[in-house]
């Protein structure tokens, strides 16, 4: 019996109809494409009315297949599959055809766009007729969640889940959780003490009965899929046994080896070879920096071992590999600072009193290297004038096009701290003042009143080449004041560069492990930028905080909580449906050559030695098709993407070639 296909062409408002003659396409399909029983166009197919139209046709017209020509299946495949199900049609007998992203949005002329839409619909109809009903597979959701990154976003997600009663594994790369927020003194716009609001969350997470923390650890490998991931974590050797260490710090105190701390103190302070990044570190367990330890480098010392009463020092400790099953993964790996040396005309690294924003955070911090005194690089002189340069490495085609979103506010915070602590003159050099969250503009106004100076213009150069009286011995900021419309030179004692927030150097690599992608700039790509900001294209993998884009603490916390809520929803439901699009092996034809076994990137093929055949483990298979192509006997089939379906699709797309050549398109191919 011939299939009865329904074709539905969506206008998407004017998104598609503005470039494609949708009415004509619908009419054409009915008249020219074989087995099309119904063909309609409509303003918004995804609306309830549009869906109802499809459902009614399935029932009344007895449709056996449906083609929806609209937007990307990423957006609405689920919607239309559901509509088919509602009307009793197997959802896998519906095919979407993307005439928005693939046609109207990229085309420049109406006629060829309309023709291309016809080709794609013809292909979809040819294919859908050969599709087979499939049943989605149900998989139980492991209630344990993996959170990667223990900054404020990751901590929030961890605590939300743990408080709701679900087990969480938190993996943090550095020796302590806390992220960048642990380095700050005050937080804008309220100026509350960063440590006071952060450290309680850190210890709460550590002590929580539902949280397992692996610090100084990294995620090495992920396999499986939503609901049932398998993860491998490498816990690096601390050289200190966590089960014995009491955190007394005697080892640190007596360690004779002092090195510059380029991590937490951003080069402004020192730490010992055995160290905790900061006194409130969580866990309160030191780690030996083997590269700088006298024992590891020269085979002498072992002072810490002698000092440690509980005997926790373990020089032979090895990295530990931990394998776990988890249901969902939340990535909250944050950001890294732009290397300000990349703009050499700003003098960072060459002119002593040019500081980065993170250095300045440490200078302001009461627990920092200067005990919170704002002083020049000599460690004693208080500056009488300070320049704050915005957008260093941000909004700059040579480096990052994005706005880092937080530095205008951080600059205001710095201005306030300088005025409060020193009485120096403070100049902000900005392009645009971006203070667009709750209470932010008010904070800007406050600084205007406090007497901070604002000069609108990008800084051209920071130099110590004095030109005029009053410039000797100073750092001179050369810039165009775009409000005055003239060049200005402002001599100051200290400069703070507001370096950009950039994606982590290994963001792409980690994303690949978890099956998610990054934007051109390197931030993790969310499922939908507006409507689904914490989910990703891979089910069961979520993102939160600054790894998804530069953002402030309130936004990072909101995303951490949002990601946790999404995960909780899945855990509560208990099962997830996974796509039945998997490979299967016809055991009759399998010679047991095992070529496919090693090809599969997901280790989803096992070998049955007894019967000498290979078999696909459906729960692990992602339907990528690698084995299908690799099998020398050609006995592996990828459901929903079998040869017949793809052949038909190609034949369909060439419908006009067939008409022109007057013979079978298959022959032409």
């Amino acid at each position: 019996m011939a299939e009865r296909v329904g074709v539905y062409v969506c206008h998407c408002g004017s998104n598609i109809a503005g470039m494609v003659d949708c009415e004509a396409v619908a009419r054409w399909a009915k008249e020219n494409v074989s087995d099309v029983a119904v063909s309609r166009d409509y303003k918004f197919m995804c609306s309830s009315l549009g869906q109802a139209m499809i459902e009614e046709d399935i029932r009344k017209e007895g449709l056996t297949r449906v083609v929806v020509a609209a937007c990307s299946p990423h957006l609405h495949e689920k919607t239309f599959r559901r509509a088919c199900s509602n009307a009793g049609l197997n959802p896998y007998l519906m095919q979407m055809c993307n005439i928005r992203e693939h046609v109207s949005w990229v085309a420049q002329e109406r006629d060829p766009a309309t023709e291309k839409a016809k080709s794609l619909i013809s292909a979809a109809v040819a294919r859908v007729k050969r599709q087979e009903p499939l049943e989605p597979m149900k998989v139980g959701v492991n209630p344990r969640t993996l959170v990667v990154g223990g900054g404020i976003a990751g901590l929030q997600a961890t605590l939300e889940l743990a408080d709701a009663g679900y087990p969480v594994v938190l993996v943090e790369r550095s020796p302590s959780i806390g992220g960048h927020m642990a380095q700050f003194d005050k937080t804008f716009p309220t100026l509350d003490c960063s440590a006071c609001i952060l450290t309680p969350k850190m210890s709460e997470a550590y002590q929580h009965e539902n949280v397992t923390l692996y610090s100084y650890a990294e995620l090495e490998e992920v396999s499986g899929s939503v609901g049932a991931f398998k993860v491998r974590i490498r816990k690096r050797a601390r050289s200190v046994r966590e089960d014995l260490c009491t955190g007394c710090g005697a080892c640190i105190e007596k360690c004779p080896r002092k090195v510059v701390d380029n991590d937490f103190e951003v080069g402004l302070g020192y730490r010992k070879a055995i160290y905790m990044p900061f006194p409130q570190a969580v866990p309160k367990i030191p780690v030996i920096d083997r590269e700088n330890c006298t024992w590891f480098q020269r085979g002498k010392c072992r002072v810490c071992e002698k000092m440690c009463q509980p005997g926790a020092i373990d020089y032979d400790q090895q990295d530990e590999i931990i394998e776990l099953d988890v249901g969902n993964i939340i990535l909250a790996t944050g950001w890294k600072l732009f290397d300000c040396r990349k703009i050499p005309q700003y003098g960072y690294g060459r002119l002593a009193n040019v500081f980065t924003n993170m250095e300045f955070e440490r200078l302001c911090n009461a627990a920092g290297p200067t005990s919170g005194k704002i002083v020049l690089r000599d460690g004693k002189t208080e500056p009488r004038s300070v320049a704050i340069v915005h957008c260093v490495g941000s909004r700059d085609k040579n480096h990052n096009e994005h706005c880092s979103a937080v530095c205008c506010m951080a600059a205001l915070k710095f201005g306030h701290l300088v005025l409060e602590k020193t009485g120096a003159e403070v100049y902000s050099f900005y392009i645009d003042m971006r203070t667009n969250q709750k209470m932010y503009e008010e904070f800007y106004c406050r600084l205007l009143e406090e007497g901070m100076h604002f000069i609108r213009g990008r800084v051209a150069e920071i130099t110590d080449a004095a030109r005029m009286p009053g410039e000797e011995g100073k750092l001179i900021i050369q810039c165009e004041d775009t409000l005055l419309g003239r060049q200005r030179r402002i001599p100051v004692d200290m400069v703070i560069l507001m370096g950009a927030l950039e994606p982590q150097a290994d963001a792409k690599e980690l994303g690949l492990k978890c099956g998610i992608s990054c934007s051109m700039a390197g931030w993790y790509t969310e499922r939908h930028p507006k409507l689904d900001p914490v989910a990703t294209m891979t089910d069961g993998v979520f993102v939160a905080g600054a790894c998804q884009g530069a953002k402030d603490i309130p936004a990072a916390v909101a995303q951490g909580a949002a990601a946790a809520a999404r995960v909780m929803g899945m855990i509560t439901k208990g099962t997830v449906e996974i796509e039945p699009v998997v490979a299967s092996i016809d055991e009759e034809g399998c010679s047991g050559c095992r070529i496919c076994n090693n090809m599969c990137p997901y280790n989803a093929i096992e070998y049955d030695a007894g019967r000498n055949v290979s078999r696909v483990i459906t729960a692990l298979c992602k339907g990528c098709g690698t084995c299908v192509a690799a099998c020398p006997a050609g006995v592996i089939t990828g459901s929903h993407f079998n040869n017949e379906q793809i052949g038909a699709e190609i034949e369909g797309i060439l419908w006009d070639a067939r008409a022109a050549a007057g013979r079978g398109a298959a022959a032409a191919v």
Partner: protein
Amino acid sequence: MKYAFYPGCSLEVNAAAYDVSVRAVARVLGVELVELDDWNCCGATEYFSQDELTACAVIARNLALVEPSMNQLTAPCAACFLNLKKVDRLMAEHPDLGGKINEALAAGGLHYDPGRVRVRHLLEVIHTDVGEEAIKAKVVRPLTGLRVAPYYGCQVVRPYKDVDDPEYPVKMDELFRWLGAEVVDYPVKSHCCGGHMTQISEPEAFELIRRLLQSALEYDTDVIACLCPMCQLNMDAYQSRVNGMFNTSFHIPVLYFTQLLGLALGVPEKDLGFGKEIVSAGPVIHAKLAAC
């Protein structure tokens, strides 16, 4: 290593020291410079403001003269270099203009396809093509103790960004470090020397020159190294006039980078054009280099 060579007019007279030293170091470093047969003036900066098409055609003629067997052209003068590079790009980016230029060239039986010749400044050739290893291997008289301030000016590093960092270039710094000199890292190394402004408004031009000399002095410079005849002329020949105008007493020799390079490679001073500069470099060089 073989390059078509465009010396430019300055090197014939006022920058004769650049000319002899370029040829001398090229010989030692094994860089074969094949001078263009019948090259013409590049028109410097002025022609462009008069008539773009003529300015471009005059320059393109030199590109067209590069023998078909060669695909790289090098020029020691910053202005010539930029003009040649710019016209090659303009022709590629604006096929209309390229067509008109080729019509003009056709009158002389010539033709140029943009992109055929890669235009390189001599500094790139020495720094990047010859490279650190080969240069270090040939140093016989290291410039130990000599404080050299490399001066880049504008046209080699801007507006095109592919030669060096446009704001804070470093290639000459690296070269002098390979030669054993103490490199002066001073802040104005790529600021403008004023170019032809001396002919238009002396107070403006002299102020620009003063800033360069002032900064070099503050950073304890023995000698400034240039890569452009215009820059050299401005800082050297006008130095006493600058002193007069600002009541300063600058006395800083300004040489071509190839002169100092030649010295390190063991070329005799007399073959490097020493002594042609107005603020004499001899005393400081002899004092510093004899000491070690």
